């Protein structure tokens, strides 16, 4: 891998590709979650499919985990290299004069999302793995909706969920269009890509929060 990723641009392109992959994953995750609001039966059905289909479980899930881990690890590597590129700092550095806060602090929004991922894995993924592969429980196709609703009973957890998604929105606000720039796309479509990125950054995380709040107050 070091051979493929041996230049700064190659590492940035890998970062952009993994980011775009996670954007696609986020979209499908949102669509599935959204079904829990309109039809608990559909949510159970789709979740059951995702949780039991061998292709999803043993191909897509490992690819997703690799994508998530890669994006975070590479993010840290790039951040450390960037910090090492300026060993003596400025007495006065007016970063806000030429770049927005979001683009300058992707590591902060990324770290919050990483912390949230830890909680999310603890809440859903780890119990799911134990349920299926440690305790070898028999599959119940109707358990998913109840499990989801149960998690959003806690106001603290719903609050943490909401705050994390605001930080995810900030991360996407810069990350979406930045991935296209890194992939070499800067042309007449760039204003449209930037607007699409901003719309995505607001609507998808906002949608996740709305779903969480809906379940919190509805049950």
């Amino acid at each position: 891998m070091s051979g493929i990723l041996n230049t700064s641009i190659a590492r940035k392109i890998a970062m952009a590709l993994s980011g775009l992959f996670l954007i696609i994953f986020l979209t499908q995750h949102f669509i599935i979650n959204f079904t829990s609001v309109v039809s608990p039966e559909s949510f159970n059905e789709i979740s059951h499919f995702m949780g039991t289909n061998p292709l999803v479980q043993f191909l897509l899930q490992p690819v997703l985990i690799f994508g998530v881990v890669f994006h975070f690890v590479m993010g840290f590597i790039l951040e450390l290299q960037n910090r090492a590129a300026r060993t003596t700092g400025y007495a006065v550095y007016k970063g806000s004069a030429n770049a927005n806060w979001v683009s300058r602090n992707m590591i902060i929004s990324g770290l919050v999302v990483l912390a949230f991922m830890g909680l999310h894995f603890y809440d859903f993924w780890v119990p799911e793995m134990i349920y299926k592969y440690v305790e070898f429980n028999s599959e119940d196709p109707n358990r998913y909706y109840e499990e989801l609703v149960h998690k959003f009973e806690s106001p603290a957890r719903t609050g943490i969920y909401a705050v994390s998604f605001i930080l995810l929105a900030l991360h996407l606000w810069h990350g979406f269009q930045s991935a296209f720039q890194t992939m070499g796309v800067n042309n007449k479509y760039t204003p449209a890509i930037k607007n699409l990125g901003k719309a995505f950054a607001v609507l998808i995380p906002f949608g996740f929060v709305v779903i969480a709040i809906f379940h919190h107050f509805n049950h």
Partner: protein
Amino acid sequence: MKLKLKIWRQKNADSAGKIVDYDINNVSPDMSFLEMLDVLNEDLIAKGDDPVEFDHDCREGICGACSLQINGEPHGPDRGVTTCQLHMRKFKDGDTIYIEPFRAKAFPVVKDLIVDRSAFDRIQQAGGYISVNTSGNTIDANAIPINKHDADKAFDAATCIGCGACVAACKNASAMLFTSAKVSQFSLLPQGKVEATERVMNMVKQMDLEGFGNCTNTGACEVECPKGISLENIARLNREYLSASVKG
């Protein structure tokens, strides 16, 4: 105008530097920033002190010699100008002005406000050229038809004066805007296409070797560039790199 200056003083590359305070009272709003420093230096010399060392040459914004991080921004608060084109009328009477060298590991301080920007020269030497037959059979460049759009874009990229403001402004001290301009000015033209693959691979490799940071697309470089070099060039560099990588 009366000003309080806070200037980075550093005896040489090996010694530790520090911010030193200076009061200056006889500043005209019509002076350029460098003329203001000239006045300060005349006062320092008259007192028997060491003058503040800073880079300058043409003093008309075309050579790329002047630098300076002024109140946290390369070339100061004005846009589209170098430090030599910055005028004191951009400041107010009584202002405090921080003057520091461009900071990057790849731009080590030589003395006071002078930094060694030869890293840029080495990036240029790694591939920022075209090979031309000069044995008497040289083809006149104007004899090759070039589409106006490409010629304009290449010329825009070629206006980069290599001052290093992009590196100084970038939170990552990345040299991507400079390198992308130097790659773009050739890659857009037919004469530059012959060596395109080696050029981009070698220049990017040298850029990394010099210890510059990675581009995170904050856009600070484009805002601070005195020549208005666009981020389009960085996207083009990324495309050129991708294309060269595929060719191998």
